[in-house]
């Protein structure tokens, strides 16, 4: 997917919601992010891809402001260019007891005003906004169920509703596809794409598996050992770049307009990282 045929540089320069320039983060003496540079256009979907330990979570935390950068800059600008962009965050999962008395709509409501003091006063306006957010992510039918009793895919939708109810400019999703079955995976990806298209919410989706996002993302941000490479999918999802990223022969095939990422057969090299191994197991054909 190209950026509507425009010159990417011009498009991004004008409507970038996030600009990360030469970001370097050092944690406990270890360089976790090493001059990471990329930007994210309003209403676009970017995949943040890399093996475990590549710095994906640290990058998300840096964008959220929980991790201080050693050097470089991180600019979050809202659509109109005046204010700082609002950021929504979707964790991989939340560990809730099935008995926890918290309905899906309660959690979404906490996305609206969870940091305020006092009881949430019931108002029609608040209820409407919660209903709309639940509707937008297709979670209306389990709005009154306990969050802890929902399936992984259902919980993911509720967490997305929790994050988007305040209408953020930028949505960060941390491994949203981990532990989901194929169908839920597809549904969550479609949801993120539709939020970008219809509501102009830019998304940065971290994942160690490229496949589910291919076709839905406008851009790829690759992280490997703290270093980054970014660009359009067809520029970066290539045999050369993926092989370099995983340190292991990975073939990228394009079949019927779909990109198939396949690990080469044969025994894995001795220093294979867990993600390359995972990839090799996951794509047997």
């Amino acid at each position, binding site marked *: 997917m190209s950026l509507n045929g425009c010159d990417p540089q011009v498009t991004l320069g004008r409507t970038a919601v996030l600009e990360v320039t030469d970001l370097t983060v050092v944690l406990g003496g270890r360089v976790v992010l090493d001059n990471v540079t990329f930007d994210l256009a309003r209403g676009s979907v970017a995949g943040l891809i890399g093996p475990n330990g590549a710095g994906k979570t640290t990058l998300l935390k840096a964008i959220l402001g929980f991790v201080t950068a050693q050097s470089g800059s991180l600019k979050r600008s809202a659509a109109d260019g005046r204010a700082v962009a609002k950021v929504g965050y979707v*964790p991989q999962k939340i560990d809730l007891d099935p008995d926890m008395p918290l309905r899906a709509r309660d959690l979404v409501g906490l996305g609206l005003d969870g940091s305020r003091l006092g009881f*949430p006063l019931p108002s029609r306006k608040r209820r409407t906004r919660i209903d709309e957010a639940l509707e937008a992510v297709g979670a209306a039918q389990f709005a009154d169920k306990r969050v802890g009793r929902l399936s992984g895919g259902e919980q993911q939708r509720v967490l997305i509703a929790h994050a988007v109810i305040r209408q953020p400019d930028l949505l960060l999703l941390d491994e949203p596809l981990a532990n989901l079955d194929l169908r839920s995976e597809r549904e969550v990806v479609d949801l993120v794409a539709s939020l970008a298209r219809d509501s102009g919410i830019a998304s940065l989706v971290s994942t160690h598996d490229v496949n589910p996002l291919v076709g839905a993302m406008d851009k790829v941000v690759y992280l490997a050992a703290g270093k980054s490479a970014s660009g359009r999918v067809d520029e970066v999802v290539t045999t050369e770049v993926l092989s370099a990223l995983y340190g292991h022969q990975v073939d990228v095939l394009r079949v019927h307009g779909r990109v198939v990422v396949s690990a080469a057969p044969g025994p894995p090299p001795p220093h294979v990282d867990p993600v390359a191994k995972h990839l090799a197991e996951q794509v047997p054909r």
Partner: protein
Amino acid sequence: MSALIHALFARGLFSTATVPTAAIVGALAAVSASAAGVFTVMRGQSFAGHALGDMSAAGGSAAFLVGVSPLAGFIGIGAVTAGAISAFASRGRRARDVSTGIVLGAGLGLAGLLLYLDTTRSSTTGAAVSVMFGSMFAVASSTLPAVAAATGFVLVCVAALYRPLLLSSASGELAAVQGVRVKLAEAGFLGVLVVAVALSALTVGAVLATALLIGPAATAVRVARRPGLAIVVAAAIGIGSTWVAIVLAYDSYYWSSSHAAWPVSFFVVGVIFVTYVAVEILSSVRSRRAKYRRARSVRSTR
């Protein structure tokens, strides 16, 4: 009719001076315990609640030794315990559990010493039993204003911290993203827990305080799907348990010819436990029935 009433409510129940005090203390303690207890259950902090309860044995026996109100002793030792637990707990639930265990061990040792001093110095054996297992009937009516103030503190704090606490109970990460100062909310809740446990210890004794804190709350979360409603249900169960216990304890005077009334704390804990088990059985029957019905409807549509 009057025979039935007399069978239910033993003679003198409504004319005994200690009964209204006991009923008020029991109800206020139950309300505080529910407000704190539902969050304790949600946050998985039952062990901290239990430790605070056990620790109050040291506070109660110290109060007995120096002759101040046991409530002051309970709250005092609770504050020290909470401070020690937070100081030792670096990060994470496991670290918190370990530091709670260490502080608890030290505190119980201290309680042992203080109870020994209580019994040797004042030569009463009642101190140990009343500190450990309490009695609503033994609460002096002069303590009522303090009990009411403590309950007010718990309710105001829980109401104020309601949303940040709820969000951080669901996920500390989400709460931090929303701008909740998670550590501060946690510290505030620990303060609430200290006072609620002190009230429970006053009502049913140090050792049984957890039962009043956790029991009604654990039952309520099985029944209620929303957090606010769970607190209300827990409070109802707690008040019901303490009041039924008062009646039963009073009745038990006439149960045997020796005329020795059974301890009221036993009945409080007993009623709470029976309620929990009953709700547990009912909800498992209901979910099994629902499963059966679903299975049948699937079969019939085929």
